[in-house]
């Protein structure tokens, strides 16, 4: 079974390829040098982390941290939260409506609707950002958080739609018919039968939509006008030709930890759901 062993070895190599840059990023976040490096070890430090909470005086004392605008950073993070708070519930709503129509609406126009609703997920992100900018600009709305929300919503709603659709297709229509036959009104059937059935899928969809909204750079970058989100602010640091400050690495380490946590929780959730179904 050498081919099996080869496949296993390749799998580990692939995982190594996926994780190595992340491990290096974490390592560099503890190195007392800027731009971040793992080869030029200047000693262990936590100052790239403490950037986020240390007092102003010690910030000004550091030659690298001095150049960074922490308040702006925090404001941009706040914007990201604000955007996600608006975008995620709306995306769930639109996604649910789309999923219901695409799975249950028997019509010739159904095929067309597939193309329309899926096209934002396929289109290059920049295009969505630009078109939101142009369209809302024409209606007199300046680029800013609102255009970011609209541009993100356009394609993020597609994720809940696909997830809910897969789940809806697995729900036998019989169950809804049985409830109707027992005298329930369609509204009751929806809230008592269909929605609880979709609940785990809605939860996964919310997690994914939040992640996508937070990390989105390509679309947001084009729709943002003068506003910023965490992603665009991180992206802006790339403009420095000397490399970015290791504060980014520290933030990256936070994000990796959070992601690992959420992923494990999500996997457990899915497992429980699989057991229940």
């Amino acid at each position, binding site marked *: 079974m050498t081919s099996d062993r080869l496949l296993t070895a390749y799998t580990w190599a692939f995982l190594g390829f996926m*994780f190595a840059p992340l491990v290096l990023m974490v390592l560099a976040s503890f190195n007392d040098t800027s731009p971040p490096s793992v080869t030029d070890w200047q000693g262990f430090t936590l100052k790239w982390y403490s950037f986020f909470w240390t007092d102003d005086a010690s910030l000004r004392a550091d030659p690298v941290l001095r150049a960074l605008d922490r308040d702006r950073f925090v404001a941009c993070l706040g914007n990201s939260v604000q955007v996600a708070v608006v975008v995620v519930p709306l995306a769930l709503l639109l996604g649910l409506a789309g999923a219901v129509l695409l799975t249950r609406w028997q019509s010739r126009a159904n095929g067309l609707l597939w193309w329309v609703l899926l096209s934002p997920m396929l289109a290059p992100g920049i295009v969505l950002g630009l078109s939101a900018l142009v369209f809302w600009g024409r209606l007199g709305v300046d680029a800013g958080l609102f255009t970011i929300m609209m541009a993100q919503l356009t394609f993020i709603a597609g994720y809940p739609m696909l997830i809910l659709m897969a789940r809806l297709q697995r729900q036998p229509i019989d169950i809804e018919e049985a409830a109707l036959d027992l005298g329930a009104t369609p*509204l009751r059937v929806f809230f008592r039968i269909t929605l609880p059935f979709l609940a785990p899928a809605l939860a996964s969809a919310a997690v994914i939509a939040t992640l996508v909204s937070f990390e989105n*750079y390509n679309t947001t970058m084009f729709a943002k006008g003068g506003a910023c989100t965490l992603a665009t602010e991180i*992206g802006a640091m790339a403009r420095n030709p000397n490399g970015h400050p290791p504060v980014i690495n520290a933030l990256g380490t936070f994000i990796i930890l959070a992601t690992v946590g959420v992923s494990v929780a999500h996997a457990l959730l899915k497992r429980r759901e699989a057991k229940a179904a």
Partner: protein
Amino acid sequence: MRSLVRSFGPALTAGFVLAVLVWSIVLILAPQWAMLDRALTAPKRALDSSVAASLAQDSLTCISVLDAHAASDAAAAAGAGGLAVPSASGMAVPSMGGMAVPSASGGAARPYILQCDRADTHRAMVRANGVTEHLDTLYDLPQLAVRDSDPIETQKATAAEIAALAEALADRLRAEEATRSPYTAANFATLVQPVLIPMTPETRAIEDAQLSNRLLGLIGLRFERDGEIHARIGMITLTRTLVYAMLVTALALVLCYPIAYKVALATPPERAVWLFLGLVIPYAIVELMRVYAWTTIIDTNGLLNAVLTGSGLVAEPVQFKRMPGTVFLVVVYTYVLFMVFPIFNVMSTLDRNQIEAARDLGARAWRVHWRIVIPHAKPGIAVGCIATFMLAAGAFSVPRIISRGLQSEWFSQTIYNKFFESENSNVGAAYSFAYTLLCFGIVAVFMAVMRTRLKDFARVQS
């Protein structure tokens, strides 16, 4: 629709329909329509009426600047000393300070004034197709210009005359433009417009020998005219980006198929959960972070260079961020997992017994894949390819962060620059729209060839 109402009731159905209408019209179709509209309208400042109007404006400014000039001359003549530098108009008139030297020198009656120099009916207008036309010849104006050698009064008179002519012309053109369709394909035409590339003979010899340039010549994107090299820069960036995106997709498929197979079919389910998690974690980490992670490796004094110089393979650190291959590699790294999951999700629905049955019937491993696994996984492969291709084609963060502007653009950067940096949003809109259309065309052809349908997108979702 009737069955919808029956299962969900009129109120809910109306809500769903309304939500989908808002989504598809307000969020999807109308913005694209606005883009198309913007792409098809000529930029305001490129309209002939705007050119005429700006000529009138320049002439009037010329007169007022000349007036101010005369006033300051008079003041100087009054012998109040060199103390008053007039600031008659808020206009930034160049080299006003140089006025201390009076007009006698060089036969000019005044110093250089930009607006007076531009007060010339023979104003050039470069069309989208590269042809240069002139305002006076095109619209039958007398050829008039303000000459700095003329007496000031003559100059003012000429400028006034030009202003009157230009204003009349502008009014006439505006009226005409208002009735004429405002739409033009000129913005799209800039995409294929050739640009002269100035080169010394030496660099040209080097450039000509390059394979990529020869290929570009073969498809007509780079050619020689009047002894000079011309290139259709927009199309070159577009083509290169699409070729890169296709290569990324192909490479991602080759890399991911074995992984998807391993996790979906060749590992006991209870262990596959952990392998799966190992794929989910890098997938879920913020895209930008994964791009930044690479900078530690490819920087001039990054890990890779440390290894290379340390082992004596290279003497000088390699400038990886100048190499297109680096951007390519990081794009692969960033989007490769979008290939794994669709394939994995479909593959894991395959009954493992089918593989064992095929083995039992004497099929070798490759035949099992070719006849059993690949046909089953085909929708997942198609969806993975489409997702990866579209992400790679629209990549913006990776080239921006990795190359730091040190190498040629990806097309998404070109669109960004047209839109925000050159303030030519009409051309930017045309680029963006054309690019979207092209990408969708490629996807449609691919789907037809692979015989996949959009519904497969829902099927491959876990």
